[in-house]
């Protein structure tokens, strides 16, 4: 009568494949840790950390507004403007791409497949590198940042838009085709009303991402708050670093909150 459940329920077998994967992972980690020089920490690390934290808690409030030029508010405004313009540009560019890449909008698999490939190529191209190239083309400044964000965002927005287009209800489009609508009329009256809320929601989401990207574009000279920040960092002016960081955090939090509540309304 002493039948234990261990006999009744068979233990799952440990597969060899799993062991192999673990071994492989171990090898990869040994390789990774072996290649990193862990000794190169500066002796001043503790001191600098302390200086940074004192700087963060005693921000340089005078930097918020300077009457004669580069100050925090103008830097933040510049960052905001870069991300707004970049998002709007990419939203306009990516609409044709989205219809190109949507599988239910084209007759051949080749057409939508090529669109998808192009979008993923744009997506993996880092925006910072794009900004570096645009700086070479149009000179350093906010405009290079706008172009970089505008082009890079097309990758992600185009993909999300095309997925939205693929999910539409085909009833209205079929009804319009049956009633003799042209392709353009079909898109205007059957597709657009269905996808518009999704599009707007994605645009807002991308705007939140772009705002974060725009804060670092200045590191390489593409405008925005990043430029004074990197100057303050390299000149070890921690009070100023503190106020800039505070400004960035406040701006991103406020914009995230506004954009988040707008998105909740849309969907």
């Amino acid at each position, binding site marked *: 009568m002493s039948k234990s459940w261990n006999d009744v329920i068979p233990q799952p077998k440990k597969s060899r494949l799993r062991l192999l994967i673990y071994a492989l992972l171990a090898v990869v980690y040994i390789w990774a840790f072996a290649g990193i020089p862990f000794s190169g*920490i500066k002796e001043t690390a503790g001191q600098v950390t302390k200086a940074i934290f004192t700087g963060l808690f005693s921000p340089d409030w005078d930097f918020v507004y300077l009457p004669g030029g580069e100050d925090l508010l103008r830097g933040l405004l510049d960052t905001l403007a870069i991300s707004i313009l970049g998002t709007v540009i990419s939203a306009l560019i990516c609409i044709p791409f989205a219809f190109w890449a949507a599988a239910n909008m084209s007759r051949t698999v080749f057409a939508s497949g090529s669109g998808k490939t192009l979008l993923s190529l744009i997506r993996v191209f880092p925006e910072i590198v794009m900004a570096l190239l645009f700086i070479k083309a*149009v000179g350093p400044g906010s405009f290079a940042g706008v172009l970089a964000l505008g082009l890079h965002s097309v990758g992600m927005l185009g993909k999300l838009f095309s997925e939205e287009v693929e999910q539409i209800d085909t009833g209205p489009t079929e009804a319009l085709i049956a009633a003799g609508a042209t392709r353009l009329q079909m898109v205007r009256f059957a597709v657009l009303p269905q996808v518009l809320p999704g599009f707007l929601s994605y645009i807002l989401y991308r705007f939140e991402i772009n705002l974060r990207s725009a804060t670092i574009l200045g590191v390489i000279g593409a405008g925005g708050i990043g430029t004074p920040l990197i100057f303050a960092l390299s000149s070890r002016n921690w009070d100023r670093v503190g106020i800039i960081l505070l400004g960035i955090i406040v701006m991103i939090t406020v914009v995230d909150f506004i954009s988040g509540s707008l998105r909740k309304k849309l969907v």
Partner: protein
Amino acid sequence: MKMELDTAPFEQPVQPPLLRPKPPGKLKHYLTAAFLLLLVWGSSLQTDATFKELVEGLPNMLDLLREMFPPRWSYLDNIWQAMLETIRMALIGTTLGAFLAVPVALLCAGNLIKSRWITYPVRFLLNLVRTIPDLLLAAFFVAILGLGPLPGIFALSVFSLGLIAKLTYEALEAIDPGPLEAMTAVGANLAQLIVYGVVPQIRAHFASFTLYTFEINIRAAAVLGLVGAGGIGHYYEVTLGFFEYDKTCMIIIFTLVVVLVIDYLSTKLREKWI
């Protein structure tokens, strides 16, 4: 033949009361559109972005593209070591971040920790960490630790911590409460609850989030070198500074290939896991 009906004395039908609701006013839409236009106009003023500048910059861009192609294939010998370092940084950074994210995610989950005095402050701190972009974190760690891959690893760890902890705690709050209630009923403590009730439900999600973060970190690690935090990013400045665009093009192509391959592998793994 004329229609009789036309001349027949007709009683004018009484206007039926409007049953349909009035269509919503369009004024809100127009105002929104006007506000957006104003926003775009202001932004373009602020950033000096004009169509003219774009047209003027166009020949420069074409020149740049012409100089980038064909890429200098032989430059691969100089950069593959740096690419391996980039992958190492992403790997270690993601792993450390994933380990650190576990306790943070548990502390954020409202269905495990009942006290709001713990979950809300931890969530607030997590959101604070998530507002700081990765390149900025790297710049900070470079200031603290000096140049090299180590600050890059730290930056990626903190960045991964923020991302993985957020995704995991949202998944934690969505788990099936049945097993947890059953275990509480038979008197399990919090540690047992987590080990036997939560971990089996969340394991696959967690692995998937970690892989996803690894994909993001590979891309991030490829540019961290721009602020001196190790990896292949350093070579962008080297080649662009000397106007060797064909070498830059080689770096870009190499990075794209590596990112695409890792994305492909990671996506396959994630599909298996979930």
